[in-house]
């Protein structure tokens, strides 16, 4: 039974918006232009590739369902109380192979000594073998390193060959599509072999696509290695209750993405409407909106968020009958966190848009429209909104990374997402106590740190590339030439 949680609905809505925006933009050459510029930037394209991998994981993790249980009651199918996602199904193996407690990455033994009863009845304190990690090895002491290296090599080769196969296939596909269109339009006979190599050579010569190609190959190798190792080991170790950290980190991606994008969805209407209205209408409207955002931005946002989240938590706990599953409850709390973050973070963009509108309203084309007696709402939608859209886009992409970080901080403080929701914040929070332990449990924190760094860094680099592509000052020389 498919389940659509609140945040799922939000994400699908966002996805639909993005797709329709892409279709809309495609027909308008002046809007396509900056995106073409973006496609020429290798940094932008590489970060987009990495980001899209994250988004893929997030989207797979967004498609939720409840499994039908084998037994039936009164002929009706009974569904499990646990809400799973497509990603859970794909990563079933790592999800279910829980150890007893901590184990280091790629280890075959637990991280702490335990009293083990040997077959001959003696009690020995030693590191016990893991239930799943390296279980296929007879003598991990001597075989582990060799096995890991072997699997790494095989994984790298597999990844590489699959990637090359895919790229060649993709190239063929593009080539044949091109060939068909060329034939139908010009009716020329083109020699296949020459041109196929030619297309490929041109791809290599082109700087952004070369960078993209190299990144894709590297990613494929990394994926191959991870998949191969994860089959028999815990690549990033396990946490206190023996859950695989790699699985937790991958599950955290969705939470980060939801916070980063859905918050924007909440924030945009406030920022756009209020900012433009304040800038264009001036007078008392401007005064009211300015007061509103000055007051809002002078309240410490962590306090505001903490208060709101705690209130929400109490409210949810008083009405347990509202929720069919625990996932629905955790999800509502996540959504509410997005709302709160959205309400507290629109002020910056609003101020920016107000300033831009103040500049635009003095433009002569606005005055020309006023001279025609065009009504204010129409001027706002036809003249002002399209001309501030580039600012909105840049602000949204830039805000994304700061929101992902904000979630981590809030969850760490304890006012973020539900403790049962996996997120970078909860991951860090659970790793916090273990930092003081001797020997130190370092991998949970490292995993959260690494994943977040890559996600936020690629988002930031992408934001930079977007900003550059939309900045008229940087692109002036191109226009002159």
């Amino acid at each position: 039974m498919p389940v659509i949680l609140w945040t799922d609905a939000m994400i699908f809505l966002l996805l639909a918006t993005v797709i329709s925006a892409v279709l809309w933009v495609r027909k308008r050459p002046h809007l396509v232009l900056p995106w073409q510029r973006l496609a020429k930037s290798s940094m932008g394209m590489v970060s987009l590739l990495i980001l899209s991998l994250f988004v893929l994981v997030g989207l797979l993790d967004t498609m939720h369902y409840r499994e039908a249980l084998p037994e039936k009651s009164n002929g009706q199918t009974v569904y499990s109380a646990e809400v799973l996602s497509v990603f859970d199904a794909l990563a079933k193996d790592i999800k279910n192979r829980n150890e007893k407690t901590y184990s280091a990455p790629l280890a075959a033994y637990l991280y702490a000594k335990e009293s083990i009863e040997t077959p001959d009845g003696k009690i020995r304190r030693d590191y016990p073998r893991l239930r799943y990690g390296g279980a296929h090895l007879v003598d991990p002491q001597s075989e582990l390193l060799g096995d890991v290296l072997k699997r790494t090599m095989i994984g790298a080769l597999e990844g590489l060959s699959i990637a090359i196969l895919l790229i060649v296939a993709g190239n063929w596909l593009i080539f044949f599509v091109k060939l068909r269109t060329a034939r139908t339009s010009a009716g020329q006979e083109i020699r296949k072999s020459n041109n196929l190599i030619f297309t490929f050579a041109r791809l290599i010569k082109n700087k952004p696509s070369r960078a993209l190609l190299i990144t894709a190959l590297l990613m494929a190798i990394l994926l191959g290695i991870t998949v191969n190792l994860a089959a028999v080991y815990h690549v990033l170790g396990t946490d206190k209750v023996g859950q695989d950290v790699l699985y937790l980190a991958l599950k955290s991606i969705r939470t980060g993405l939801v916070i980063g994008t859905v918050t924007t969805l909440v924030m945009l209407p406030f920022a756009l409407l209020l900012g433009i209205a304040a800038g264009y209408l001036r007078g008392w409207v401007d005064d009211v909106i300015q007061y509103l955002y000055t007051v809002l931005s002078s309240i410490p946002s962590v306090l505001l968020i903490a208060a709101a989240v705690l209130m929400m938590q109490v409210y949810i706990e008083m009405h347990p009958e509202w929720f069919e599953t625990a996932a629905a409850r955790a999800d509502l709390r996540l959504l509410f966190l997005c709302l709160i973050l959205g309400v507290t973070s629109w002020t910056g963009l609003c101020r920016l848009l107000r300033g831009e509108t103040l500049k635009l309203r003095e433009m002569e084309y606005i005055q020309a429209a006023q001279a025609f007696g065009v009504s204010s709402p129409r001027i706002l939608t036809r003249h002002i909104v399209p001309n501030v859209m580039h600012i909105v886009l840049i602000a949204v992409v830039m805000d994304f990374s700061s929101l992902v970080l904000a979630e981590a901080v809030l969850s760490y403080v304890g006012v973020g997402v539900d403790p049962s929701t996996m997120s970078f914040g909860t991951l860090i929070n659970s790793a916090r106590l273990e930092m003081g332990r001797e020997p130190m449990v370092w991998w949970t924190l490292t995993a959260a740190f690494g994943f977040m760094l890559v996600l936020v860094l690629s988002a930031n680099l992408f934001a930079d590339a977007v900003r550059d592509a939309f900045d008229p000052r940087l692109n002036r020389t191109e226009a002159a030439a």
Partner: protein
Amino acid sequence: MKSNPTINQFGPLLQSPPEIGRGEVILNVNGLVTRLNNDVRIVDDVSFSIKQGETFALLGESGCGKSMTALSLMRLLPDGIRIASGDIKLEKEDILALPEYAMREVRGGQMAMIFQEPGLSLNPVMTVGDQIAETLKLHQELRGDEIRSQCVELLELVGISDAPRRVYEYPFQLSGGMKQRVMIAMALAGQPKLLIADEPTTALDVTIQAQVLKLLRDTQQKTSMALLLITHDLGVVAQMAHQVGVMYAGQIIEQAPREKLFACPAHPYTQKLFAALPDAGRSGQPLAAIPGNVPQLGTPFTACRFAPRCDKAWALCHDKVPVWTQLENGQGVRCHLYSSQMGNEKSNLKVPLSPDSCAAGKEKPEEERIDTPLLQVESLQVHFPIRKGIFQRTVGHVKAVDGVSMSISAGRTLALVGESGCGKTTVGKALLQLITPTAGSVRFAGHELIGISARELRKQRAGMQMIFQDPYASLNPKMRVAEVLQEGMDALSIAKNSDERQRRIDELLEQVGLEKASKWRYPHEFSGGQRQRIAIARVLAVNPNLLICDEPTSALDVSVQAQILNLLKSLQQQLKLSYLFVSHNLAVVEYLAHDVYVMYLGRIVERGTVEEVLRTPKHPYTQALLSAVPRIDGQGMKTIRLAGETPSPSHPPQGCHFHARCAHVMAECREVYPGESILSPTHRVHCHLLGK
């Protein structure tokens, strides 16, 4: 050559450049080529030389590579543009061979540059004195008090009164003209041998322009430096230059001493440039506009660059690049007319101007005057409150428009002239109710516009429309031409269905001389002149009777300006439109207007027909304004230089507003504002001189 008295009648040039002993060559540029990274030449094979004490003017329209030439000389080219070949010699020094650290000595020390926008070329957080001292420290070995006294000396040299106090002031405390003087003082601080002035007066008012040009001439006389003047204004060239190089699309296409160039321009482009200048003599017939636009900077060429726009072009012109030809009389020109058939030269030297421009004025059909005015304005006032303090109390008013009355009849053009800040644009916007007037009455076609409801006002909107100054800011970059044109029709429900609207759009585009196909394109694909045509089509879409034109040609090149003026004129004849033409360009006003109102600090100081006001000005301000306009023919009345600048409209002087700058000031002027003196049924002046 007798065909054109206006241009050939040089007479004694009252404001001619100083004749001083010109010595050895200071700067020698030979075959300079500057390229973009993609190998397009934006400055192509430019050669010239400047002697000591000489002014060399580079004349050309925007996008012709004038500024790039200047920046190449300073080696200050922006990223992505580089000097490809050629050599530049400053005295004996090869500029292109110098290492960067030596070049820093040359910049400011031997070559200095002043820029177009004085407001942007001074650092707002440094005092004027500190900025000059910076240059002094770098290029002269002065220390401590010497620097301060040298600063004061320099400021005095550029005619800033009260210099010892001004040294400690910040740029925001100075007016535009003063800032440009400070810039000149900074440039002079290094005692340069060559001063490059890149459109030094374009951003300034005519009276201030006259002051700055005089300053440049005087300074040149004192220091005998060489001056490279970059300008698009033929009038400025006529006043300043000894040698003139005409640039077109990156090349110098003609080079000659000023007298020769103005007497008989050789290149068809130069001839056309002169012919495209509007003036009263030609108000009857269309201007000789050059079709098309200046090619984009960086377009590759295989033939003569001007050939596509040249009416004398023949097959060879489209085929081969013309070579530089030196004529016997010292003129150099790059045109096939001279290189390939020297025998025909004489016939081509004739300036193809209108055959008889004097007669044209008389031929002009006297339009019958319609007595019921289309627009009647009575004592219109626009006051902006000045608010201060926490409670935003009104402490005073900026009287931007202070009691303006005017009336425009159908089919006539009324020109409102004045310097920037005098309130002429505010009048235009107040008439359209874009700015709410404080008091007064505006009657348009018998309907009072002030104080009526928004709905009533919308009914009247169609009748009166505005054409704006900057065609780049007046079209929404995100809307296609058809959408731009449709907006007014939608808002005022002009056409019923979409078919009718599309037909109307096609019709409008044809009317303003654009292709029908252009309606699906975006504004950024058009040049300035074409954009202005779109803006005109946009207002025509709602069938107005009165167009308020707010300096519609001031952002355009001379050749394109002529096209737009011709269009406006022909539209007036076809559609019986009335124009309220707001402008500071008196030549355009002379060409287009029937009546002229002169505005100073929010009030009309003189009004009358175009002949009355511009031929026999009575108000001292009008006289000064007219004499400050640099004219290419050098004829004109005695030069009256206005001291100082326009006072702030928030604190207009007691009595006559003009008294502080007036040469004929009397005791009475300081006390009471002069009443209206009626000189003829149409000519009225506010001045005490005429009151008696």
